[in-house]
């Protein structure tokens, strides 16, 4: 398992995709720094109150986090979908699985290696963006580390789905299914918030249920909560219309949801193991 995980990390580092993403992320962070700096400078010159500026920057930071969460989700899909499928297609898996390793070691090793890469990328890009915004605006979110952990967790959920799909589907098909599932889960969360605001309990319940089917949107809400300043949660908390805003989150995700998310990831990795075990090579 460790051999496969190390091989996976080495592959990610040697292939261009990760470095292209790192380069694009650095460009994005530079653009964010320039944009936020310009915004803050102009607002201060026009005499806007500092509280309002900090409030504005906090919301911009949440939108930046959303962009990174999307990039991370896509990265997870692009890295995860060929993780096993490409090895099966190329015959690499035949040579590896004829060795004295279990198929479970192969799947879990692949998952571990990619999860480490994605978590590292999420931590580096997320914390860098937050640090740069703090540097140019003076605004620091209340729980930046918690937000980054949720950011990475959301991507790992998507990675886990793509690894499962990778045991059965060709790379492109698995990646496409995962991206669609991610979009549907996010829309499910938005619809649930709107249903709550408009007092439509059955739809809200269906949306809540969708978070348990694919916990990515629920974890995204954890990112928002970690970045949301107390003044915003105090001002908008409890108002029905606030629930319809996917970029506002009053409460942290409940513990039961976090436990479920961990169990969900373990269960889907387990399913991937069973799926590969049953597959004829």
């Amino acid at each position, binding site marked *: 398992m460790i051999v496969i995980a190390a*091989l996976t990390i080495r*592959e990610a580092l040697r*292939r261009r995709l990760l470095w292209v993403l790192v380069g694009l992320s650095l460009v994005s962070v530079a653009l964010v720094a320039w944009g936020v700096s310009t915004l803050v400078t102009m607002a201060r010159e026009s005499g806007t109150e500092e509280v309002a500026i900090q409030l504005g920057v906090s919301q911009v930071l949440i939108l930046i986090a959303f962009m990174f969460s999307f990039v991370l989700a896509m990265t997870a899909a692009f890295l995860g979908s060929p993780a096993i499928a490409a090895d099966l297609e190329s015959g*690499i898996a*035949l040579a590896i699985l004829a*060795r*004295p*390793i279990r198929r479970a070691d192969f799947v879990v090793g692949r998952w571990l290696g990619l999860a480490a890469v994605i978590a590292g990328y999420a931590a580096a890009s997320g914390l860098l963006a937050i640090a740069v915004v703090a540097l140019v605006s003076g605004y620091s979110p209340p729980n930046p580390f918690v937000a980054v952990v949720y950011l990475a967790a959301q991507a790992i959920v998507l990675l886990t789905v793509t690894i499962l799909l990778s045991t059965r589907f060709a790379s492109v098909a698995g990646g496409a299914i995962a991206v669609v599932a991610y979009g549907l889960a996010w829309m499910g969360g938005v619809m649930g918030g709107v249903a709550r605001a408009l007092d439509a309990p059955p739809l809200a319940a269906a949306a809540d249920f969708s978070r348990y089917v694919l916990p990515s949107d629920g974890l995204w809400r954890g990112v928002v909560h970690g970045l949301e300043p107390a003044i915003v949660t105090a001002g908008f908390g409890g108002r029905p219309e606030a629930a319809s805003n996917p970029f506002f989150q009053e409460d942290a995700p409940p513990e039961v949801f976090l436990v479920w998310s961990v169990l969900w990831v373990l269960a889907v990795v387990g399913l991937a193991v069973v799926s590969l075990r049953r597959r004829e090579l």
Partner: protein
Amino acid sequence: MLNGAPPVISTTGLRKRYGRTEALRDLTMDVGAGEAFGFLGPNGAGKTTAVKLLLGLARPSGGHGTVLGRALGDREARRRIGYLPELFRYQPWLRAREVLELHADLLGIGGGPGRKASIGRTLELVGLADRAADLVGGFSKGMQQRLGIGVALLGDPAIVFFDEPTSALDPLGRIDVREIIRTVRARGTTVFLNSHLLTEVEQVCDRVAIVDRGRVLAIGDLNELLGEPEVRVRVAGLSPAAIETFAMFGAAILVDDWLTIRPIDDARVPDLVAAIVRAGGRVHAVEVGRISLEDRFRGLVGAAALTPPASPAARAPGPDWPAAPPR
């Protein structure tokens, strides 16, 4: 040969079905330690399926078997098995040496000078020592094939399965692979050679199973399958009485200009030629051979599967159907 020793590969009624297609039917065979066993058949005969079943990469639909005395797919057995898949590609972003290091890790071969020496020897054996630091992505198919053979031989396995090992190689590469197989065999390693190339099997294997459409049509020693040796002499000027005197070498038959003596000991061919010359015959050509594996194969599988020229004497040398060399 088994010689009473327990077989290293043993199967009884092994079957594999993919949906409606029966890829392998009732494979029953024993392969002894140190043998070079050829599994010969046309494309789609079920050869690769058989190897995948033996390695545990596919599950049998029926029957059972053992490899190295353990159940098919057993992890401990796989530690002592090398495998070159038919269709494969190694990680293009790894260097040749790194591919071998990866497989050394997967085999649990620890660090130290022994490991480094083993990898170095393997690279040397397959002729890639000077390309060890090159990325596999830049390798030709033939070089990848050599690397694959190296991977299969890493760690001195007790059995090595080669699935079409020369399929991507040029004629010189094929000769090299035959030499490698002979070297490996000389170390006592059992070789299981899947091939549709008759010459390849004929030149390196002691025993052969001929398979077609999932069925084993014949199995046995190469000598048993190939039959008795013969010599054909194109000769002129011999009287019927002179021909009768050649019975001391074997049964003699003259058809047109060709005198065939069968069976004959290879070592006595020069004496026969000398006797013909003494009897006044003018010798134009001498061909030593016997029924070729190709003829045997064609007889079993049917002419429809393969259509090379029928006569060994008339057969044009080619990559798949070269003239059978004297044995």
